[in-house]
């Protein structure tokens, strides 16, 4: 179809591969990512609004509640999995399927490790008395937003792991395209990027 889509912009484009030549699937994925990102934006904006409304002084001091080293390790694991994902995509583009598969498995391992660490963190919180509508540290919405935002993100990681498993198993059977792996990769990088925002807004500030 690209042959029947001559775009003036494409002819004048002088910066390497034109963004207009991306596949339909990739364009759709980008629009999906924008809309999914805005769901997180809604939650994070709500969290910011609520925190300002109750007053920063009433907000629990995160450094006393969270085990920051543990969270930093979680972040490290997730960002590393993004790097392995990028390696897998690059290998798939070079049609080096052995390397691609190896790094896909590493990415899945990273995702599962992250989920495990998150479950461990949740377990600790729940044991200390945090609930959706109450917590021992102060305003109830603190734990509500904690569970909602990290839960939503965790769900996305879980979906990402499932998608990667499907892609990897298909790759192992020889039924994959570099484009398909790249799409899964885009989603995975998006999930990691969202974590950076969650980490920054919820844990650090």
């Amino acid at each position, binding site marked *: *179809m690209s042959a*029947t*889509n*001559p*775009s*003036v912009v494409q002819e004048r484009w002088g910066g390497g591969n034109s963004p*207009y030549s991306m596949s*339909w699937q990739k*364009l*759709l994925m980008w*629009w*999906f990512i*924008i*809309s*999914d*990102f*805005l*769901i*997180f*934006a*809604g*939650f994070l*904006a*709500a969290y910011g*609004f*609520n925190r300002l*409304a*109750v007053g920063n002084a*009433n907000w629990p001091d995160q450094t006393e509640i969270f085990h920051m080293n543990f969270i930093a390790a979680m972040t490290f694991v997730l960002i590393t999995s993004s790097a392995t994902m990028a390696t897998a995509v690059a290998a798939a583009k070079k049609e080096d399927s052995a390397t691609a598969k190896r790094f896909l498995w590493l990415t899945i391992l990273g995702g599962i490790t992250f989920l495990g660490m998150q479950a461990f963190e949740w377990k600790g919180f729940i044991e200390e008395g945090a*609930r*959706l*509508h*109450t917590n021992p540290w102060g*305003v*109830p*919405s603190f734990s*509500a*937003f904690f*569970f*909602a935002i990290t839960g*939503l993100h965790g769900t996305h990681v879980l979906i990402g792991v499932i998608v990667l498993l499907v892609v990897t198993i298909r790759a192992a059977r020889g039924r994959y395209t570099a484009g398909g792996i790249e799409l899964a990769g885009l989603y995975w990088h998006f999930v990691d990027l969202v974590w950076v925002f969650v980490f920054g807004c919820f844990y650090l500030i």
Partner: protein
Amino acid sequence: MSQGNGHDHHEMSFFRKYIWSTDHKTIGIQWLFTALLFIFLGGGLALMIRMSLARPGSVLDSNYYWIMTMHGTIMIFFVIIPILVGAFANFLIPLQIGAEDMAFPRLNALAYWMIWPSAIIMLASFFVEGGAASFGWTSYPPGTGTEVMSTSGMTAPSGGSGGLGQTLWLVSVFFVGMTSIVGAVNYVTTVVKLRAPGMTYFRMPLTTWSIFITAILAVFGTPVLASGALMLLADRVIGTTFFQPSHDGNVLLWQHLFWFYSHPAVYIMVLPAMGIVSEIISCFARKPIFGYKPMVVAMSGIAGLGFIVWGHHMFMSGMNPVLGMTFMISTMMIALPSAIKTFNWLATLWRGNIQFTVPMCHAIAFVSMFIVGGLSGIFMAATPVDIHIHDTYFIVAHFHYVVFGGTMFAVFGAICFWFPKMFGRMMNSAWGYIHFVVSFIFFNLTFFPMHMLGQAGHPRRIAWSYDVLKDQGYAFLKEYQGMNEFITICAFVLGFAQIIFVLNVIWSSLKGEKAEKNPWKATTLEWSAASPPPHLNWDGKIPTVHRGAYEYGSPEGKDDFIPQDADLTKA
């Protein structure tokens, strides 16, 4: 030339062809009939509202809140948005840009079929204990969130107006939102990737432009509503307190999240109508649309500004005066692109060779009603005036002038205009004129007096104003009860006039005069396909586009118009 999946050239069974179809035209027509089905439910609820207001004291009064909530919800989420960004977006985008189908036909079918679980959940909520949702289509907490919570933590929903019905409402709206997003990402991808050779962005018909911009609005706005709905649902079902001031939640937070989507949603409900009207006016004035690029820029401007004005729904909710002023100014700025569009329509009509066909009458009705609705909008954009008219019938008059007087007339016009392309037959124009005249007159008789009711202080969303028989109620509304009765009578005539339209649609689609390829002598690409177009639209011969979308009255052609795909160098 493969366009995604799901395209087989072999003969399809009836079931595959008309029910589980991935053809964008079939899906568009499915959306159209779905919306026309729901318009009668929503309209019936509207008449129940009017009955309650004209004759207070009936059983309707105690059911008033869910009736008016479901009227708004169904009209917005199951009629207006589906008809504009479901029916016409699906039917027109591929035909107008010269594509064989949507970029993702199966995703497209999924978007349509996702509306049904959502609709069934919404309809089921009429029958659960406590009745359907009853806090208005805005579902403001704390009312919508309190029933589930007690101070000790979670309890079961206690029934009553905030019971299961409200929960189902939220689930349904969340699914409608997902439908919107799935549809919108497909439309955007299709417009960007599947335009025919020569179809540059600034040669696209304005209808496609308006739907393209609307789809972008939907992608940016709907997820935020979805996040809000998820939080409110969590408040109701699993006991969080995001919006509960009894703990430390914040009711204003919901209003922000809700209106961040729902104000742009107002433009989702009017931008495609503007595109449709531009198309019809240009065709029947036999003149190129005046200011094509300004039209596109104005629509983009409306869409962009639409995201920074949501606070004007909350002037009375309490906000920092500086913020109130900011939202007031940004809201007033929307008058600029709207005025550009209005004057462009008028300039297109100016000295045109105007043909008053049925679609043209509806399009001109759109412009005039949109002016009334737009001007009354400026009243409430001004904060000092808004304090007086907030939550009165003035607001009801305003948005019905925009959504019914504006969008619905554009929709009627669009159905009449593209009817030959959809069904291969002409619509009966005699009954078309009768429907138009009755609707136009009784629309104004119904909704114009509401401005006066609102000025007099008649609140919206209350079950009864003044009961003449029992001589009780709001004394200051006593003298307006006659007006309420008058409005109700007119509303019934308006409602029953729509039966003419539906009968006309059904009769004409079966028995109407056969339509030729291009009955209106229009220029855009859809008129170069057969009526109705076959599967894949042009039998594999994608047209090549040589010029802009509105070459009417050009001296170069042999007729008074030059179709977009006409190659004059060959002639």
